[in-house]
């Protein structure tokens, strides 16, 4: 309030002065200005100034008095010296606290989340379980559906609906079936051929589906090996075919590399051999790596390329992890796969293991 008063007082004299000046000049205009009465005018102006000054002070004082008397001050402001400003500070503190809590809570809610949408009123929170999954009542005893005693009405969700009996008879169904059998003559296609392919001799031409040349099937797809695909679908246990095949191919590559090294009479570092044999022992691997680093100084020994070593580590991991997955027959769906991403924790996770191990 004090600031408002000062604003009023700053603007007040200017406005009053201008008014007074206007009125004074209006009064002076009819007077003729001559050389003989210049002194008198000067004296008059000085008198007028002093009058105006006095008048303005009076008007300001009156205005101030009127302002003070017009505004009724609240009692707690009037009694400020009485020491009763404690409730004010309590209110201010509560407001600040609420604002701070709201700011913090808004920062926690991510924009676009369901909770955020609910807060903005775009979703209702009472309709679906956002945080709580549905455990609604016994589906065998649904209280929301009640059939009337005469079977002519049904009450669903509080609204009563009139029921009409179904009048379809078996004769009408048979009539419709006959109509459709006459209208739609169709054989389900069993063979899909691209345009330009020849129809196999033992295939009914009516069951051939011709795929246009610009169809996505024809342009982008490759044919499946039917026997192999069928075996893959019916496989119930063990490592899937392709993973197994990739593993075997990499194993053959490793053996070929080892044989090639033997033929070249090169000495394979035993530490590297250990690395291939025991990929899960991270401690041993780290120790062995330390030994390798020491042995790298010796020019007579050949150390297998570390890149190749990494290449060979992956199939062992995947193979082992797949075996682990195959053993867990009860948890073989994707939910468990998704929930347990750390199944494959072989040498690819050496750094994590070393960081977690306090002994290292």
């Amino acid at each position, binding site marked *: 309030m004090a600031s408002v008063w000062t604003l009023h007082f700053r603007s007040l004299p200017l406005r009053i002065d201008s008014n007074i000046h206007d009125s004074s000049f209006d009064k002076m205009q009819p007077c003729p200005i001559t050389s003989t009465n210049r002194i008198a005018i000067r004296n008059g102006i000085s008198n007028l100034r002093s009058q105006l000054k006095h008048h303005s002070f009076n008007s300001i004082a009156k205005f101030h008095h009127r302002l003070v008397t017009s505004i009724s001050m609240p009692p707690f402001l009037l009694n400020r010296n009485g020491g009763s400003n404690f409730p004010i500070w309590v209110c201010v503190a509560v407001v600040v606290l609420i604002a701070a809590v709201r700011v913090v809570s808004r920062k926690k809610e991510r924009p676009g989340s*369901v909770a955020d949408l609910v807060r903005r009123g775009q*979703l209702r929170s009472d*309709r*679906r*379980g956002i945080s709580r999954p*549905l455990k*609604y009542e016994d*589906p*065998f*005893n*649904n209280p*929301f*559906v009640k059939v009337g005693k005469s*079977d002519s009405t*049904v009450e*669903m969700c509080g609204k*009563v*609906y*009139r*029921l*009409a*009996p*179904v009048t*379809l008879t*078996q004769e009408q*169904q*048979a009539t*419709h*079936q006959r109509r*459709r*059998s006459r*209208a*739609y003559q*169709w054989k389900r296609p*069993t063979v*899909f051929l691209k345009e330009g392919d020849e129809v196999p001799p033992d295939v009914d031409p009516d069951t051939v*589906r011709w*795929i246009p040349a610009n169809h996505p099937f024809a342009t*982008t*797809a*490759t*044919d*499946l090996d039917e026997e192999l*695909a*069928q075996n*893959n*679908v019916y496989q*119930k246990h063990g490592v*899937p075919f392709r*993973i197994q*095949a990739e593993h075997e191919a990499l194993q053959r590559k490793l053996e070929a590399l080892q044989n090639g090294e033997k033929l070249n009479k090169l000495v394979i570092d035993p530490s590297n051999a250990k690395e291939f044999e025991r990929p899960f022992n991270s401690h041993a691997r780290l120790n062995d790596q330390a030994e390798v680093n020491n042995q790298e100084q010796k020019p007579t020994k050949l150390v297998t390329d570390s890149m190749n070593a990494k290449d060979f580590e992956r199939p062992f991991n995947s193979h082992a992890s797949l075996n682990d*997955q195959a053993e867990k*027959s*009860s948890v*073989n*769906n*994707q*939910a468990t*796969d*998704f929930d347990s991403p750390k199944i494959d924790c072989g040498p690819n996770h050496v750094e994590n293991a070393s960081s977690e191990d306090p002994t290292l």
Partner: protein
Amino acid sequence: MPPLQLLPAFSKPLTPPSALLQWNRKPQLSGPTPRVAVITSGKGGVGKTTTTANIGLSLARLGFSVVAIDADVGLRNLDLLLGLENRVNYTALEVLNGDCRLDQALVRDKRWSHFELLCISKPRSKLPLGFGSKALTWLVDALKTRTSSPPPEFILIDCPAGIDAGFITAIAPANEALLITTPDITSLRDADRVTGLLECDGIRDIKMIVNRVRTDMIKGEDMMSVLDVQEMLGLPLLGVIPEDTEVIRSTNRGYPLVLNKPPTLAGLAFEQAAWRLVEQDTMQAVVVEEQPKRGFFSFFGG
């Protein structure tokens, strides 16, 4: 063409027709298991995927093990409706290629562990030409004979729209079909054609679900009634699903309608349809319109 026979569901009704709704007990599974049902419509956007998700989860809630196969290869959405899109790591294509086993490609729902999802391929992967009816039949057969867990009691196949290669693939392993239609003439024409193709393929057990029914429009004669639809198609009714704005909300949230709390009209209707599917029952009466409330002011026309 073999001579047409009457539908087995009608030749031998398993439940007394007097019972409109039978709660207070677990539905009695009828027919040889696993039951393989394709959910198809012909026309797009009538609610095939929504029906698959909701009926599948309803069956799981009722205690039956369900595998839902999203056979809409190019435009798969079932994973989104179920909120499982982040958990699809392997698909049937990886199974065929030998990158994983079939049991690894099944995504188990954490809310209802009886429910599993199998996607055919990832959205941007190239589907080989060889993938077709044979491959889906192998997958269904492998599910029937799986040993890692008990074989499912229901296999629901979400069929793509149209009658192209995806439709041919999806209907191949099915024994029964759920035809989804809306009460408009475009959807009805497509539904009639698809029904004819299914019957030509030897699928006799076809039941109809009429979706997006609005009783207020039926009352104003702006929409065909369910009985009109049935008269045009001549198919037994499995369910009538009212139009519900909650469908869009549940779709966007990845939380199927039947899991709503409190339940919605459409969710209850899906639940009843699932109940009838288990018992191979059909609707004996349909909802026509909302009954006007009778009170003191109704005397004055209020």
